[in-house]
């Protein structure tokens, strides 16, 4: 029992962070599935959502600020795709990736300009920021909500992709870009839809993540962003369930490593995992042809 008691906080934190990572990782995996692009700016969109929330909550009540934050995040994701990726659609993949790095640089510098480089305190959201006790471990309620909410969103997303017309179009585009274009699918609107969904989930993820961490800095998107990409690769890039499972594994492992007192290596572990998976099974856990590539 005492072993359980010592490890429970880390496990809880791991599951919670895993859920947050899952929401961000979906954005990476969907964009990669369709455009074959590592969207380096996705982590910064996540950070920007945090900052937007900080600024909006000072002026507006929360019940307006939260939906508005999500809407603005979606708008940002949409805008990035239209401005920075669409003009390069026929360019080599390296150019698009460089453009993504450029966008990431731009968002970080804008954040630096608006915040003046200071860490901004994230507003506490009533009810979900309250502390609760689980089996003797004290934690915030957001820790418990995150995995449930993430799983709910993921199921909704999978249904969306399986059943709706846009979802079917997404799968078609992921399978064969050119053929689906010939079949009359409007590539640009499908890609925009992908970015909109990805940004929306990143926005929700940022609400949950920053409620837990309490402050936002211009660079706080970088590391979670990279980790979520690793999660997407780990689960098999292009596969949504894979990204979710990968994110949970990375979140839990990271916190267990912190619990062992190896905090310095919690980031390094993620990358070590990435390199191992790339060498042993480059397609990831669920990266087979049979899975949905979206």
């Amino acid at each position, binding site marked *: 029992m005492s072993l359980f008691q010592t490890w429970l906080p880390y496990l809880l934190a791991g599951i919670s962070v895993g859920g947050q990572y899952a929401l961000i990782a979906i954005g990476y995996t969907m964009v990669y599935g369709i455009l*074959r*692009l*590592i969207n380096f700016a996705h982590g910064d969109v996540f950070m920007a959502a945090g900052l937007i929330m900080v600024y909006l909550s000072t002026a507006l009540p929360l019940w307006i600020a939260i939906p508005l934050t999500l809407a603005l995040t979606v708008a940002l994701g949409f805008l990035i795709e239209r*401005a*920075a990726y669409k*003009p*390069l659609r026929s*360019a080599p*993949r*390296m*150019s698009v*990736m*460089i*453009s993504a*790095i*450029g*966008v*990431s*640089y*731009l968002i*970080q*510098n*804008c954040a*630096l*300009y608006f915040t*003046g*480089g200071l860490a901004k305190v994230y507003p506490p959201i009533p009810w979900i920021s309250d502390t609760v006790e689980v089996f003797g471990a004290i934690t915030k309620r957001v820790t418990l909500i995150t995995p449930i909410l993430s799983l709910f969103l993921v199921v909704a997303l999978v249904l969306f992709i399986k059943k709706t017309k846009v979802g079917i179009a997404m799968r078609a585009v992921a399978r064969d870009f050119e053929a689906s274009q010939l079949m009359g699918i409007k590539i640009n609107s499908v890609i925009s839809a992908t970015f909109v969904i990805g940004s929306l989930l990143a926005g929700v993820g940022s609400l949950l993540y920053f409620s837990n961490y309490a402050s936002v800095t211009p*660079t706080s998107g*970088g590391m979670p962003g*990279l980790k979520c*990409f*690793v999660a997407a*690769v780990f689960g098999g890039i292009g596969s949504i369930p894979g990204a979710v499972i990968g994110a949970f594994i990375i979140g839990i492992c990271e916190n267990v490593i912190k619990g062992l007192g190896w905090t*310095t*290596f919690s*980031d*390094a572990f*993620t*990358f*070590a995992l*990435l*390199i191992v998976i*790339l*060498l042993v099974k*480059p397609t990831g856990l669920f990266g087979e042809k049979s899975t949905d590539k979206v």
Partner: protein
Amino acid sequence: MTKTKEEKRDAIIAACCIGAFYVLILILEAVVPATHILFSILKKSAVYSLAAVSMNLLNGFTGLFSLGQAGFMLLGAYTYAILNMPTELKLGTSVYKYYECAIHFDMGFLPSLLLAGVIAAVFAALIGIPVLRLKSDYLAIATLGFAEIIRAVFQWEALGPVTNGANILSGFTDLNHIYIPFTKIAIPPTFFVMLLSGICIAIVLLLINSSFGRAFKAIRDDEIAAEAMGINLFKHKEMSFIISSFFAGISGALLAMYQFTVKAATFKTAMTYEILLIVVIGGIGSISGSCIGSFLFIACNEWWLRFLDESSNNIAGLNIFRSGFRKVVFSLIIMVIVLFFRKGLMGDKELTAKNVRQFIAGKKSEKKAKGGEKA
């Protein structure tokens, strides 16, 4: 291969230009006060141009999209700092405050600098064996991951007796304390760092024009065709990776000399991104482009756009100009270059006497053509 008269003349012109450039730097250092911002820009851009050239060797000439540059620079910087720091300082408490230094010897400036490159190259050789089998963006993310792992390892407490943990290293020979051998005459720092990185870049240039360089370019253009022509893919990729990391290590050591201190936390992925953007601005596949790009990048970032940060420029209560605005404008400029001038400044051409002549001739004929139209 016999050189034509024209090629010989061009080579002489190029040599004269480079010589004149270095003389100009020497004169500038003698005339302008050493605290002028120009020198810190020139020094930093000399360091970054070597880093950018080493990255260009991989990305632009071999077609390997690697994002591990900051990691190899960190290796170089730490190797140089640890080896070169005087033994008394290592055993004292001013640098190693919380650890007892485990290294009880020091080395001269040149051996430490060379070893900085060698250590980075050795690590690259080890990392390259598994990683270079990966393709394009997977390679990018794996090398980026290795750079992050290296950074974490260097901040690890258990390695504190060697790396001083997450604390800074200082006290090694910096740019202001380089003397002509056997004398007490200090070499002008800007001239010195430019000379060193110039020599390294010249070596890379010679390599690119050799048969190895041609093999690298063949791999970049078409791997399968290159393999069919008898080029050993892995061997050449590994070689390009090792050489690139060697020079990245040296540029890391030079960076340490330039900024007097070394700290692992500063070698972030953001640094790799900056170097990548320099390569893109200069033109992927152009050595001279990387050099010009790094000067423009550093100068814009730290000097020319500085007026944007001055709050005294604000008109009528608008608080647009304040700290950080220059970076926003700067990154917007970079986005414009990335989106609309994808070839960068130089494309994949080099700044040679022949190309300059052709460029001028092209401009003239363009003018003539335009004049003709008007008439």
